[in-house]
């Protein structure tokens, strides 16, 4: 994957920027060489097992002298927890994202080495950065979906260290794709863009190290190896070398542009970057703290979801607020009065939702504020798109759908970005539903008995057990969900016991609608009589907007990347 990305990147440099070509090749090849070194000498997937006559065992790709090959008996197959369709795509997507960020980094190095002060490296990097970001997003969302479907704790994100390790480059990468826009439009943030891409690249390598080395306690830790020291050396060298390059060119990289005012679009981007960097610092601290505490106190502290939620919650709120304000700002100077004039109407309308929520489901302050921010961001973004469409319809005499399509295609960077924002808003809706309005209960029921959760009645009607041909002992319950006496669905929460692995995997039963999920986990049952069964039931309001939002986000990102413009390619 990495070699493919490097080949494509080099090809692009060759066609568009010959001055960059040797340096892009060199940076790409050094990165590739490092990973090949690890694959060939440290963690060789093709190594075989060899033994000496006196019983010593070696792992090596080639035969050590005086040994013979051992053929292990048939393996036990893939870890049952990983047998989920999302898992086929999740790791390659994450790695495609990681590999993709190598190209903007290589162009940044090339631009620094050649002493260029222009934005050419960014022009070439933008689709790469957006593509890598999109892959990383898909990978993260698929990981969440896997956790929701397989881990059986009713959630999609546990702030597990490995999850956070993958989120960190996503955060710096998101900061980068915004900050590069400012350099392109206003000739600002020239040095900052280098800092961000260096940070993103180092965090990519750091993320791979954390995931693969097993230094962290994680529900996603499926591997353990000795790659730590090599990664440490590589990250340190890369970081120091690229920072040295940047310092060398520091004076050259003066940003000629000016920021209009505190309320201008470029200031909004500045705040956007500050918030993403704050999130990055928080996540980095959370991931590293267990290791730091182990070194200094001998105890590996757990930094759990509650700490992350408390610290990151307000920052995500700030991002939503900015997202709601930014379409109303302008490049250059926007005065407070102007912005206020544009803001009062959407702010007033958006207040309806929190007021209604407070009226209907009580004073849950966190939820109310979050819902207000979500409504504001959605409203302003939709207004913005709607306005553009209406103007097009009037000026060009186009029908609604044609105008809508053209608005998106003609200005795909901007409206692709806003589609991504709408996706973020939907995701936030799902998060708020679970974080602030989730209810749950665990109860043991006999056949025919029912439990009540909010307005739902769940009746346990049957339990049966069977053996499958692929070595699973399945225990499956039948549950009927009804509301106000009306049957809504019949679900089958399951537990699969994998004989060979001696491991159970839960398959929650779910009733999904746009409004909510009822998520039922089969926790325990009486082995012989199967008369009493324990269920854990979660009511997750709005959760499905999380998944829909993820799809919208990816579609928006693809739109923002856009198709290569034939005319531009030909003219260049």
């Amino acid at each position, binding site marked *: 994957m990495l070699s493919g990305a490097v080949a494509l990147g080099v090809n692009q440099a060759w066609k568009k920027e010959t001055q960059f070509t040797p340096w892009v090749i060199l940076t790409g090849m050094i990165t590739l060489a490092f990973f090949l070194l690890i694959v060939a000498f440290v963690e060789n997937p093709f190594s075989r097992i060899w033994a000496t006559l006196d019983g010593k065992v070696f792992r090596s790709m080639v035969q050590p002298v005086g040994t013979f090959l051992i053929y292990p008996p048939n393996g036990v197959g893939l870890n049952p927890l990983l047998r989920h369709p999302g898992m086929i795509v999740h790791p390659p997507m994450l790695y495609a994202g990681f590999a993709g960020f190598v190209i903007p980094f290589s162009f940044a190095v090339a631009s620094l080495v050649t002493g260029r002060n222009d934005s050419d490296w*960014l022009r070439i990097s933008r689709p790469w950065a957006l593509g890598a970001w999109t892959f990383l997003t898909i990978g993260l969302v698929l990981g969440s979906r896997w956790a929701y479907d397989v881990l059986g704790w009713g959630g999609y994100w546990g702030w597990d260290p490995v999850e956070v390790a993958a989120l960190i480059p996503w955060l710096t990468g998101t900061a980068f794709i915004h900050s590069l826009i400012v350099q392109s439009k206003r000739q600002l943030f020239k040095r900052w863009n280098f800092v961000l891409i260096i940070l993103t690249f180092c965090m990519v390598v750091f993320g791979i190290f954390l995931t693969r080395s097993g230094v962290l306690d994680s529900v996603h830790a499926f591997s353990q190896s000795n790659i730590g020291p090599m990664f440490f050396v590589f990250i340190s060298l890369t970081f120091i070398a690229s920072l040295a390059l940047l310092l060398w060119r520091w004076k050259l990289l003066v940003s000629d*542009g000016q*920021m209009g005012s505190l309320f201008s679009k470029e200031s909004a981007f*500045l705040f956007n970057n500050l918030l993403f960097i*704050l999130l990055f610092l928080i996540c980095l*601290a959370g991931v590293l703290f267990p290791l730091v505490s182990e070194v200094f106190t001998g105890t590996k502290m757990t930094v759990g979801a509650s700490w992350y939620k408390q610290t990151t919650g307000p920052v995500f709120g700030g991002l939503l607020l900015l997202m709601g304000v930014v379409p109303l700002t302008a490049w*250059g100077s926007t005065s407070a009065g102007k912005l206020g004039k544009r803001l009062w109407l959407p702010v007033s309308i958006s207040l309806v939702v929190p007021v209604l929520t407070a009226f209907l489901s009580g004073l849950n302050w966190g939820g109310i504020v979050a819902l207000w921010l979500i409504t504001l961001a959605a409203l302003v973004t939709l207004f913005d798109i709607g306005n553009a469409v209406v103007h097009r319809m009037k000026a060009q005499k186009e029908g609604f759908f044609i105008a809508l399509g053209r*608005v998106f295609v003609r200005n795909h960077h*901007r409206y692709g970005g806003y589609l991504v924002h709408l996706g973020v808003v939907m995701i936030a809706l799902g998060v708020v539903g679970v974080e602030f309005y989730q209810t749950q209960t665990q*109860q043991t029921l006999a056949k025919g008995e029912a439990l009540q959760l909010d307005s739902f009645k769940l009746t346990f009607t049957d339990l049966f057990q069977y053996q499958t041909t692929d070595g699973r002992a399945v225990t499956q319950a039948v549950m009927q969900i009804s509301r106000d006496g009306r049957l809504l669905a019949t679900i089958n929460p399951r537990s699969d016991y994998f004989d060979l692995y001696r491991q159970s995997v839960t398959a929650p039963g779910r009733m999904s609608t746009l409004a909510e999920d009822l998520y039922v986990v089969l926790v325990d049952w009486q082995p012989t009589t199967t008369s009493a069964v324990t269920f854990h039931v979660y009511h997750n309001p709005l959760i499905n907007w999380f998944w829909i939002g993820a799809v919208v986000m990816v579609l928006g990102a693809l739109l923002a990347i856009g198709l290569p413009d034939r005319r531009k390619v030909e003219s260049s």
Partner: protein
Amino acid sequence: MIRRAFRHGIWSHQGSHFGLLAGWMLLLVLAARVQAQTPQAVTDDDINRIASQLYCPVCQNVTLDVCPTLACDNWRAAIRSKLEAGWSDQAIQDYFVTQFGARVIGTPPKTGLNWLLYAVAPVGALGLALAGFLVLRKKTGSQVETKDSTEVSLNGSEPWREQLARDIRKDDSI
């Protein structure tokens, strides 16, 4: 104060009322003690309320409420018996911390080195706010009113026409 109470006859004139009140209070205290000693009906939800705040001491980053291992089953049973014995949530959490160390709680206690973790967000926010302020001060020197090509207004004012013209020209190069 007591003397004043004597003077105003609380003990003397209203002696019968006070006796009644004292009797009631004694009864209440006794009732509370009896209630604390009788096993209460502890539900799975009570157990999960505490178990969800505790991390399995021997597994990989899993909380006790959802951990499927036998060891966690036993720890959940321990939570049940302590709740039945009238322990408070905090006392049970403290018990687990004493037994297995502070790593069983997901929010490290605010002591010693752990303060470092709690300092990151406020110090980071302050540092970044300062950095932002400095950038803004340095870079907003001249207030150039630029013609804004992407300006948006909910009232559909002038910048919209420019925006539209720009869209139609398909001028969206970076």
